[in-house]
């Protein structure tokens, strides 16, 4: 028998980058808010950085890939039909526990790709409309960076100065200068100085595994404490399996399993989905009902479709000097946006960013991540020495265009530990993305050689690179070609909202989370201004 809880105004599903922002914003305005999260709180002392075996944990119980971790709070993902594996973390804070917190913004042109380049679709909003919410999310999470970037519009002062770029960042920056290419210190949601009671980063280097100093903008430390103080109830170990609806197709709440496997029902005036670009379509597809035979709010038929990943190529330069490349936040030094916009003389549209990154410890070097494993046998030691602690990586983030055949479906057999159908991901790399990556690989080699790299190794398409999950419940003005409207409100039901990367129309050529956070705050602002009917 199902346990029914007292009703709330707003029920948020998922506590990561987007869900936390909505919880904080609406609780500030007096809404009653409950958030259901399938994972648990993680204590800072649990993070691998605090342990000697951190590199082993990075490959096992703390792996980026939920299929490798296989923890009870994870759900498996069928990736048989995808050359890229989706990556995520399931806990209070969601994937911000794992993220590297590199936080560039979309460019104004990214919202207008149809008008400018004749591809995909324009967004139903502009950069200017989103800008105040970008600023607010930067403030909330804590952004380090500096004004004056010629590749981006001028903007409000960041709350903190840039992180140190280190001697390796400087070497790369000077190479870009010599080539006449753009570069700029990366915006990062990492504290370069103490910020709002959280410590500054001490450059330990392993940003991607949870920061035990609280220096990284993870929502468990940057947002949740204040939201909880505001009265939000964050219910952990609560795995949602269905959004419930009435005969008019409006949400009545959500059903979930608690830690003991009991079925619970949480009634609410409105439901906000924030389970990320794979988790949200999964639960919406699993919420099919009489009102929604093809999945929740899926009258357009586009739910789960248009999945975008940012296919990644990695180009690594091996140097033979004394600079240690593992010291400093892993992926937060500088970026280059010389090739960001469409260049009509090339054989592809849209462009890419280089995110300059560091290397990691001896196990990652030997087992290989950015490029292949060090060979075993007689050549092992020489090759290890060549690659260890002297690698600078240009990670290529190319703009992936939306295609309906790239999608998330429910797997007919695979389930999570509660028996809820798991997602299956179908993805093919488009020829446009391939040509874009090839161009980026060639230019990266030029830059790395200019910086003095003695060898350059490349990975043409990184498999473990599905960090960015976008597009599967896209926004738009036309209900026939989008799932939610410009405010993230479902076209089919005015009390169902989607706030994660699912709503992206296109994905730009930058990491998505500042944009996800800004959109989430904008939706919350809309609910606060326009939907007083949802407040008790």
């Amino acid at each position, binding site marked *: 028998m199902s346990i029914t809880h007292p009703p709330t105004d707003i029920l948020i599903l998922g506590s990561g980058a987007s869900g936390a922002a909505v919880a904080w914003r609406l609780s500030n305005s007096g809404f009653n808010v409950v958030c259901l999260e399938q994972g648990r709180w993680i204590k800072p002392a649990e*993070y691998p*950085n605090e342990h*000697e075996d*951190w*590199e*082993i944990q990075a490959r*096992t119980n703390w792996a980026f890939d939920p299929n*490798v971790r296989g923890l009870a709070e994870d759900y498996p993902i069928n990736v048989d039909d995808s050359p890229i594996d989706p990556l995520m973390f399931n806990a209070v804070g969601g994937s911000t526990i794992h993220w590297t917190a590199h936080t560039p913004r979309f*460019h*104004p*042109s990214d*919202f207008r790709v149809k*008008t400018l380049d004749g591809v995909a679709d324009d967004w139903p909003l*502009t*950069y200017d409309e989103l800008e105040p919410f970008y600023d607010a999310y930067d403030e909330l999470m804590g952004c380090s960076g*500096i004004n*004056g970037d*010629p590749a*981006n519009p001028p903007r409000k002062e960041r709350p903190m*100065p*840039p*992180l*140190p*770029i*280190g001697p390796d960042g*400087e070497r790369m*920056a*000077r190479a*870009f*200068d010599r080539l006449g290419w*753009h570069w*700029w*210190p990366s915006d990062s949601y990492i504290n*370069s100085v103490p910020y709002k009671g959280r410590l500054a*980063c*001490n*450059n*330990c*280097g*392993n940003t991607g595994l949870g920061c*035990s*100093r609280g220096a990284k903008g993870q929502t468990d430390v940057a947002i949740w404490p204040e939201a909880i103080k505001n009265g939000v109830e964050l219910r952990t170990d609560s795995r949602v399996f269905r959004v419930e609806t009435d005969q008019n197709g409006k949400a009545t709440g959500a059903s979930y399993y608690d830690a003991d496997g009991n079925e619970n029902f949480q009634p609410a005036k409105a439901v906000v989905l924030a389970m990320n670009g794979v988790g949200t379509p999964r639960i919406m597809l699993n919420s099919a009902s009489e009102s929604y035979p093809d999945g929740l709010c899926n009258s357009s038929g586009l739910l789960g479709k248009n999945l975008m990943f940012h296919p990644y190529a990695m180009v690594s330069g091996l140097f033979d000097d004394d600079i240690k490349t593992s*010291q*400093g936040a892993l992926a937060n030094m500088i970026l280059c946006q010389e090739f960001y*916009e469409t260049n009509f003389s090339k054989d592809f549209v849209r462009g890419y960013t280089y995110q300059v990154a560091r290397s990691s*410890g*001896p*196990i990652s*070097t*030997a*087992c290989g991540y950015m490029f292949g*494993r*060090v060979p*075993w*046998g007689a050549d*092992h*030691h020489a090759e*290890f020495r060549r690659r*260890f*602690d002297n690698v600078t990586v240009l990670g290529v983030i190319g703009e992936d265009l939306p295609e309906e055949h790239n999608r998330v479906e429910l797997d007919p057999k695979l389930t999570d530990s509660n028996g809820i159908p798991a997602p299956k991901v179908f993805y093919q790399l488009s020829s446009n993305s391939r040509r874009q990556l090839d161009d980026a690989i060639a230019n990266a080699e030029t830059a790395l050689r200019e910086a003095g790299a003695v060898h350059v190794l490349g990975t043409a398409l990184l498999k473990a690179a599905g960090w960015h999950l976008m597009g599967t419940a896209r926004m738009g003005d036309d209900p026939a070609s989008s799932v939610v409207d410009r405010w993230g409100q479902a076209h089919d039901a005015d009390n169902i909202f989607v706030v994660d990367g699912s709503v992206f129309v296109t994905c730009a050529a930058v990491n998505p989370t500042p944009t996800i956070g800004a959109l989430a705050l904008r939706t919350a602002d809309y609910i606060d201004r326009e939907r007083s009917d949802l407040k008790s």
Partner: protein
Amino acid sequence: MPESEWTMTEADRLVLSAVMDLIVPSSDALPGAGEMGLAEKAEELAGQIDLYGEALRRILDALSLEPSARAEGGFAALEEDQRIAALKALESNMVKHFDKFVDLVYIVYYSDERVHEKVGWRTGPLQPRGWELPPFDPTILETVSKREPFWRRV
């Protein structure tokens, strides 16, 4: 290890140690991974993590069936070039398990403090020590700051 009844015999341990010496041979500063006594660590880790446990079991099983090893009295008794040839055959026939097995050997080898010292890696957890880096110096922006804004207006 996934097959709970599977345990390693003394003979398996000998083979594992010999194989580890081939995967990571001796260097100028240190003996090979097997000779360093790391087989026990590999066995321990394989016992904790299914992925590596299965790889170890499959590789040792396959080596015990290797015809030349049977004829000669065991893998460890083969000549080095025969041992390498046997491993190369496994590498191409059992790609997935061999891959994980090599990872296992690398993991235990590169977790060892003696190896850290050899390669110049500061051993121990990353926190709370971190690293000192000079703070960001804006003078490095001198060249790029001179560039006219080039973002695309819409």
